[in-house]
């Protein structure tokens, strides 16, 4: 007899009494409640902004309070998903540590003494400072930096109308090397149809752990439901590695050797797509000649991946083509040769012919949006301070090269830059070698920051202009190209909680005071009305308000560029395996392998990464997200840890050539013995970011180094000493 039976026997006499009670408590609480008070419940479709992926969601609002953010399944990209960050957007809105009023610095920079002021005073102050610097140094004496946002266009327009050539964006801290590599090869940056691929190789990207995007979901879908193989190269056993079919702890910086050896195998064994190569590609003969030297046996030495595996992977990859992908994805530059590595991937993808095919690379489809037309400003007279033409002739002009720009500003070359306007960016945390960024801030006569939270950069600003969060403002309509292009709408779901403004109104306020009003003489509603005009429905704005997203039904479409007379947007009109543009600019027209610098004795290569519940350094102070990882730790393999006397959770000091930080060790077999790893986003200086103050800041450690072609910050070129404290 089981215990339950025993109890029944023992207390059988009381059954009658029990029956009376059990009935009464079976009425669900929710039902009792619902009958009493019915709160009006609004469902407002809008677009997430916790990272750059622009997932569609539905805000549940009761009595003017945001209760919940649900995914909006109408978006064919984000489908029915909302990640941890998306769900934690509520916390960003109701964060008590938000900047609630415009503020002007009263004490020393970084002292944290602020005066709360009205908008007029703050804008007058900023405009007067900018004008004074324009007077003294010319408009080029101002630097304008910003990151992707639906309202970034207004900030960038202001910088140009002001006459400054110096706007700098985040891509050289992000995906500049990939974009450039695919651009010079295909004339565009394609999307990867991971959902339909059968064979996926991923290196230099940690897609399942570091970033949740539609690609992440599609990858899981293809690897689990459609049995696609995932081959993953990473010095660290990440969550992507946990899900991969094969994981190789490749020696950092040698990915290109692996790719070149694959090219070698595929070409020498005639496994490339001959028809495709002859119809659409140029420079194949030179490529074939070039990769002869890169044998798998040679690559095995370089990469520490067995030659037989390189052979096999190359064969499997070409067999699976065109449903085979060497995945590019979104990521940073890791080495000084990062561009070449990405070029190698692009070439590899090209010669197996997986262009514009289901399960391969697909050029992005677009939905045309209208544009509010106004006569723009005159071009700036001065050249860019980072001297792009001279240093990085192929880099995107509007984005700039962040590290080179910092070097030049610090040197005052070719001219002084004395004002820095920053929108939605935290250079202190985002750029390697924090000490230099701090110097750069200190040498400015004026620093103005538009942000929603007191970032480390805002902490050193002269004036802070608080922006309303994405849940409190109306944004321009945004088109997101891709295999399934979408148009996205972001509308306010609650009234602004504090004395904050959308960036557009801040820009308008500044423009008025800088006598530039003629360029901002319109309303957000007018701007949006022009944008939605070409959409195919009768009342496009009403549609967007009701649905939050529009996606043309005819996608996905494959093969629209697959006709022999199609002209690729390259110099030759072909897919350039050998790049004319690179040759013209004085670079190697084919990817050449350079051995990475070796890890010095007694040191480790510092490798970086992040987890998908954080967006870079911007959400590590969100309490809901921070709770998953309240501080970062230094991953170190048990072997070196033993010899250094480091045990799990013991405090260690990590020192590079430019700085040192202290954080706890995490002794784990999930990393190579010659590397240590730390997560991005911690060790903040700003006391307002209380939760993210813990742990160590990677920005303090990483040394200044960049990819020679794209200018992207090379983040894995730093060696560190580790010692137990």
């Amino acid at each position: 007899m089981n215990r339950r039976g025993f109890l029944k026997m023992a207390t059988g006499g009381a059954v009658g009494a029990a029956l009376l009670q059990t009935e009464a408590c079976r009425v669900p609480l929710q039902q009792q409640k619902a009958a009493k008070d019915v709160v009006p419940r609004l469902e407002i479709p809008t677009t997430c902004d916790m990272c750059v992926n622009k997932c569609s969601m539905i805000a549940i609002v009761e009595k003017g309070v945001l209760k919940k953010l649900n995914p909006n399944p109408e978006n064919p990209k984000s489908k029915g998903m909302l990640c941890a960050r998306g769900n934690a957007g509520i916390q960003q809105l109701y964060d008590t540590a938000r900047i609630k009023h415009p503020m002007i610095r009263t004490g020393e920079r970084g002292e944290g003494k602020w005066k709360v002021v009205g908008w007029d005073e703050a804008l007058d102050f900023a405009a007067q400072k900018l004008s004074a610097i324009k007077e003294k140094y010319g408009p080029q004496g101002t630097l304008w930096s910003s990151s992707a946002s639906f309202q970034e266009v207004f900030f960038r327009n202001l910088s140009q109308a002001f006459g400054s050539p110096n706007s700098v964006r985040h891509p050289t801290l992000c995906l500049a090397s990939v974009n450039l590599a695919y651009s010079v090869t295909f004339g565009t940056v394609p999307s990867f149809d991971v959902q339909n691929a059968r064979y996926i190789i991923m290196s230099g990207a940690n897609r399942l752990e570091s970033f949740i995007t539609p690609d992440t979901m599609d990858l899981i879908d293809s690897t689990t439901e459609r049995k696609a193989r995932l081959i993953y190269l990473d010095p660290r056993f990440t969550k992507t590695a946990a899900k991969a079919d094969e994981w190789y702890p490749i020696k950092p910086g040698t990915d290109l050797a692996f790719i070149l050896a694959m090219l070698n195998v595929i070409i020498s064994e005639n496994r490339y797509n001959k028809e495709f190569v002859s119809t659409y590609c140029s420079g194949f003969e030179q490529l074939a000649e070039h990769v002869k030297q890169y044998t798998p046996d040679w690559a095995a030495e370089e990469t520490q991946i067995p030659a037989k595996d390189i052979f096999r992977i190359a064969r499997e990859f070409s067999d699976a083509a065109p449903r085979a992908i060497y995945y590019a994805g979104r990521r940073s530059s890791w080495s000084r040769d990062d561009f070449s590595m990405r070029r190698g991937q692009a070439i590899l993808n090209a010669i197996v012919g997986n262009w514009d095919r289901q399960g391969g690379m697909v050029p992005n489809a677009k939905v045309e949006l209208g544009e509010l037309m106004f006569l723009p400003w005159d071009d700036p007279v001065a050249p860019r301070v980072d001297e792009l033409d001279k240093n990085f002739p192929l880099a995107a002009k509007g984005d700039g090269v962040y590290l080179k720009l910092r070097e030049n500003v610090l040197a005052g070359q070719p001219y002084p830059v004395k004002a820095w306007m920053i929108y939605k960016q935290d250079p202190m945390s985002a750029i390697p070698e924090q000490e230099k960024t701090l110097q750069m801030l200190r040498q400015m006569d004026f620093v103005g920051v538009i942000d929603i939270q007191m970032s480390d950069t805002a902490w050193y600003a002269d004036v802070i202009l608080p922006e309303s969060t994405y849940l409190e403002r109306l944004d321009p309509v945004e088109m997101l190209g891709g295999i399934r292009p979408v148009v996205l709408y972001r509308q306010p779901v609650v009234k602004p909680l504090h004395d904050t403004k959308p960036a557009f109104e801040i820009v308008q306020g500044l423009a008025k005071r800088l006598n530039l009003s003629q360029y901002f003489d319109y309303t957000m509603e007018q701007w949006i009305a022009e944008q939605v005009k070409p959409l195919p429905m009768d009342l496009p704005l009403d549609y967007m308000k009701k649905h939050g997203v529009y996606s043309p039904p005819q996608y996905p479409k494959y093969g629209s560029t697959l006709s022999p007379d199609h002209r690729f947007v390259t110099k030759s009109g072909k897919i350039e395996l050998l790049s004319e543009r690179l040759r013209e600019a004085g670079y190697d027209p084919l990817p050449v392998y350079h051995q990475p610098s070796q890890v010095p004795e007694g040191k480790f290569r510092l490798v970086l990464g992040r987890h998908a519940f954080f967006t870079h350094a911007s959400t590590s102070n969100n309490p809901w997200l921070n709770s998953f990882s309240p501080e970062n730790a230094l991953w170190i393999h048990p072997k070196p840890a033993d010899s250094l006397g480091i045990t799990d959770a013991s405090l260690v000091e990590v020192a590079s050539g430019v700085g040192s930080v202290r954080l706890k060790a995490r002794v784990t077999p999930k990393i190579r013995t010659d590397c240590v790893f730390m997560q991005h986003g911690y060790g903040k200086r700003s006391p307002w970011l209380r939760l993210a103050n813990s742990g160590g800041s990677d920005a303090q450690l990483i040394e200044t180094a960049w990819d020679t072609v794209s200018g992207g910050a090379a983040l894995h070129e730093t060696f560190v000493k580790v010692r137990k404290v």
Partner: protein
Amino acid sequence: MKSFRKLGKNLGVLAVASLVFAGLLALVPLSTSRAGQKGNEAKGKFYFKQTCKSCHIKGEKGGEVTPLNKTQAQWQSYFAKGKHMKGTEPLTKYMTPEQLNDALTFLYNHAVDSPQPETCGK
């Protein structure tokens, strides 16, 4: 004969005129090819969209025209010829030379063989 002479005279005038025009034309491409990249691209886009795009869109009589219709060299030579509607009317009918220069800059910079460095946040 008279009429022939007249014709010849006229032809001569025409020839001189055409020579002068050709010379002028020769000057124009020289100046535009140099200034092709020196105009104001943003303004050029504005003029292109405001003026050209009123007819050159899908379904309108001009047919769709985007920067990607031509290569950089083709755009340059098109503007050098300065003729519109299969060479029947001058481009200057629609824009000032300065505006044309801006428009060329825009089209040149986004031509089908132009570098297309893409960015993030699109």
